[in-house]
């Protein structure tokens, strides 16, 4: 009948373990990525994102090994982001077991990476990961784990990412990340109205009402959650049921 809306679970990974940053600082260790990913699949997660935080050249091998181990046990889509610098890095991540690859700082530094990636692997593999922070009447793009402010306007940049070949946008509100006060609905609406590809909203999920709101009211195709499910504030199953009860088309597991 229709494409369902997705609930995406993000695992921030550092050296092969899951951590979740609050406002990108103060990291806590919450577990084994493969085990958690499988648990979320069973509970009805539609997709998993591994975000390699503080990715260094030396740590790449750890991430690829993790991707391989995960892909052998996970049977829902896996996106890997963080530390992707080149098209060869993208190829490595896809080859290792990712279905999609997120590019953030590298896309700002060299937007052609999205075009080249889309040509080689298809647009559906290329996720433009955009970290945006409110700046007066608009939103500013930040890179390098939200540490570096750029001159880019988030809406203009989102459009350019799509024109360059990105097949999806993973949009994170820096202001809301880890705050659990709800997604930035205005930001999400501005981006989802500006582009023709799916938008995954991220940053701010505190409860099921927030998840439903960003999909029903802000045009997101998917809502990303992390801390609230890792900490046991709620569960993937409870969030999916709340989405269904709010008349959002979702996939329910038996």
């Amino acid at each position, binding site marked *: *009948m*229709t*494409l*369902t*809306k*997705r609930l995406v679970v993000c695992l921030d990974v550092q050296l092969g373990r899951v951590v979740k940053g609050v406002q990108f600082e103060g990291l806590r260790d919450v577990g084994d990525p493969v085990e958690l990913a499988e648990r979320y*699949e069973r509970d009805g997660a*539609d997709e998993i994102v591994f975000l390699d935080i503080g990715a260094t050249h030396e740590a790449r091998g750890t991430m690829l090994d993790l991707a*391989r181990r995960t*892909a*052998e*046990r*996970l*049977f*829902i*889509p896996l996106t890997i982001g963080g530390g992707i610098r080149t098209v060869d890095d993208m190829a490595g991540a*896809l*080859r*290792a*077991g*990712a*279905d*999609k690859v997120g590019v953030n700082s590298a896309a700002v530094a060299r937007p052609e990476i999205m075009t080249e990636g889309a*040509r*080689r*692997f*298809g*647009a*559906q*593999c290329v996720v433009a990961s955009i970290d945006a922070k409110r700046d007066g009447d608009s939103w500013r793009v930040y890179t390098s784990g939200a540490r570096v402010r750029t001159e880019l306007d988030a809406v203009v940049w989102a459009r350019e990412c799509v024109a360059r070949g990105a*097949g*999806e946008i993973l949009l994170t509100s820096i202001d809301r990340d880890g705050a659990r006060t709800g997604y930035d609905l205005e930001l999400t609406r501005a981006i989802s109205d500006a582009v*023709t*590809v*799916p938008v995954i909203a991220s940053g701010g999920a505190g409860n099921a009402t927030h998840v439903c709101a960003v999909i029903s009211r802000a045009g997101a*195709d*998917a809502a990303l959650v992390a801390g609230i499910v890792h900490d046991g504030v709620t569960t993937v199953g409870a969030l999916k049921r709340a989405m269904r009860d709010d008349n959002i088309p979702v*996939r329910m*597991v*038996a």
Partner: protein
Amino acid sequence: MRITLFDYGAGNLHSLAKALQGVRREIVLETDARAAANTDVLVLPGVGAFEPAALALEHGRDTMRAAVAAGLPCLGICLGMQLMFDSSEEGSGAGLGVFKGRVTKLRTPRTPQIGWNTLDDARDPLFGGAQLATAYFANSFVCRPLDESIVTAWSTHEGDRFPAAVRAGSAIGVQFHPEKSSAPGLAFVHGFLNLISHS
């Protein structure tokens, strides 16, 4: 049973290889199109773009087409399904032509289609057996068969109704990714392989 994945270079084959595993099954990755046809089951995986894949297929295309026409069981997934048709709007080159028709872009304002879509009017018992009612898609292009009687399930994205699955004998093409459609997707793959091993 020897199951060969034709590896045309692009993407993640781990999940698919894992999904196909089972007792008395040997999974083989083969980059040579002609050699790939020498198997019990041929799988055309689903990541990449049509043109480079058609190029990789070219030197073994006739061998592969003849083998499938002669009854070699074949499962084409996403781009792999599209490669079972004649040609594609996405790029030049020829597909296998096992199914007659052309691959076109989704006629919707928003592409790619990424996410879980429902399978409508599913009439292949493999779907019911697997309880596969919602499957994961990641595609901008879809197949338009000349003869719609080969369609065994449909899906709709923003008003464009397209074949989610086609079948002629033991040649099956699916636009979705069963290896990414969780437990019911795996059950679909195993249903297909069981069907073959018993026929």
